[in-house]
């Protein structure tokens, strides 16, 4: 309606687009409809979804998600839970249907689980220890992984404080894959060597599932002091396919 009124007042299509935030074809179609059939013929559609029509996670969903996040995904080709896998698992194992991945991502965000990836590639031109670390370790690691048909990941572990009175804080293992896709696992106690090793094994399996038996996995990891764990150091020696690059402190 606003676009037609603007056109009636002598504004151009471009100006009407700018003021009404509609596209040029929409403004033109509305103007044409007005000329042919008057105000009744102008199509007016409500914009966006109606308030309250989005997926809402209730306490049952929330508890089911918490339960799922504390276990490894059943598929071994999934390194940890992503929103899509959680939505499917929620429907399959918990009978909670109709929950979209986007709703789960909003739930993560509300509970402080929506961690963003660090801008590691931004260190490429930095003249600092972190910059040197990127150029000397991360860049060659990422290049080797890409060349072998493998994958590059960023991840870490952190403590997430309780967001409501009921739940204790959790230890979140998180990963960012291609285009920053978030994967995670939430543990009630600090992760131990076996948890990290399971994660690494899943990453390697996932990279090789695409049919590249020599695929490497490059993982930049933040928040764990692996040097103090003989089990992990031993595993890394035995599995050269995993290029682990701990974030410098």
């Amino acid at each position, binding site marked *: 309606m606003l676009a037609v009124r603007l056109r009636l007042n002598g504004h151009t299509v471009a100006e009407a687009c700018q003021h009404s935030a509609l596209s040029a074809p929409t403004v033109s179609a509305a103007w044409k409809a007005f000329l042919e059939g008057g105000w009744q013929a102008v199509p007016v559609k409500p914009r966006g979804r109606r308030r309250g029509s989005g997926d809402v996670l209730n306490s049952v969903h929330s508890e089911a998600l918490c339960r799922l996040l504390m276990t490894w995904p059943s598929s071994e080709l999934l390194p940890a839970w992503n929103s899509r896998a959680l939505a499917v698992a929620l429907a399959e194992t918990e009978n909670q249907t109709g929950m979209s991945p986007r709703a789960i991502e909003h739930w993560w965000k509300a509970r402080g689980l929506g961690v963003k990836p660090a801008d590691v590639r931004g260190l490429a031109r930095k003249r600092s220890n972190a910059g040197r670390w990127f150029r000397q370790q991360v860049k060659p690691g990422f290049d080797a992984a890409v060349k072998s048909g493998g994958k590059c990941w960023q991840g870490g572990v952190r*403590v997430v404080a309780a967001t409501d009175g009921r739940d204790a804080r959790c230890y979140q293992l998180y990963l960012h894959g291609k285009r920053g896709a978030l994967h995670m696992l939430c543990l009630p106690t600090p992760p131990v060597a076996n948890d990290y090793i399971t994660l690494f094994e899943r990453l390697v399996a996932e990279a090789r599932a695409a049919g590249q038996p020599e695929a490497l996995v490059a993982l930049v990891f933040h928040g*764990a*002091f692996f040097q103090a764990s003989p089990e992990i150091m031993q595993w890394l020696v035995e599995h050269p396919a995993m290029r682990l690059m701990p974030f410098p402190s």
Partner: protein
Amino acid sequence: MTTLTHLQKLEAESIQIMREVVAEADNPVMLYSVGKDSAVMLHLARKAFAPSPPPFPLMHVDTRWKFQSMYELRDRMAEETGMDLLVHINPEGVEKDINPFTHGSAIHTDVMKTEGLKQALDKYGFDAAFGGARRDEEKSRAKERIFSFRTAQHRWDPKNQRPELWKLYNTRKHKGESIRVFPLSNWTELDIWQYIYLHNISIVPLYFAAERPVVERDGALIMVDDERMPLEPGEVPMMRKVRFRTLGCYPLTGAIESEADTLPAIIQEMLLARTSERQGRVIDQDSNASMEKKKQEGYF
């Protein structure tokens, strides 16, 4: 007429106490634990006797379990100040390999700190020892006088303390008695930080927040400072942004999660803090009135 700020008043009081001790004692010593209070006390001592170095040595009662960066600062400061640094480690404790893990914090503190201190004072015949304790740290320290008298066996009797009215100190000692002197008694943790900021005093970097490897032990965050720290099977230390409000033996000192990586940020944090810095010391939670019992036995 100029009015002194509260920090200048505290500084003047501490300097007066130090000069009083040097005038009255035969063989004084400054106990240097390498913490922030020791750093301020050392700065005040240098100021009190400038331009010459303070007329007493520094003494560190070492337990072998301090943070590595504390040892680095200790040696650097001794060199910078030109003061003699006496380091004493209880030889019996070394022989029996007393440590906080196998013997527990109580035995470790008793043997390596309390007994070590008594041995060192006897060995060198010191009759007055400066310490950086403050009243706001802990309740038993709150009731201790600035001049705290100890028997020949180094015991403290909290019910038999001398009055210190109008800042007049009675320094007469009975035979065999020694004095522990606390020039920073009336300072608070916030005063210490403000003074460090104002005078740009060197302190151990562990006081500033940084990512450090820590493990959780009974709700406390313990830093993995060297390979001697025993880990649980499969345990992997986490890198967390922590700092220390107090420094002691690293397996017995809890860190706090903090973002304060500069002095102004620490002061800001102090203004909001509602807990004592000693909450991070495992040795203070051994039992009720733990510190008072230890002090009666000769602990600082």
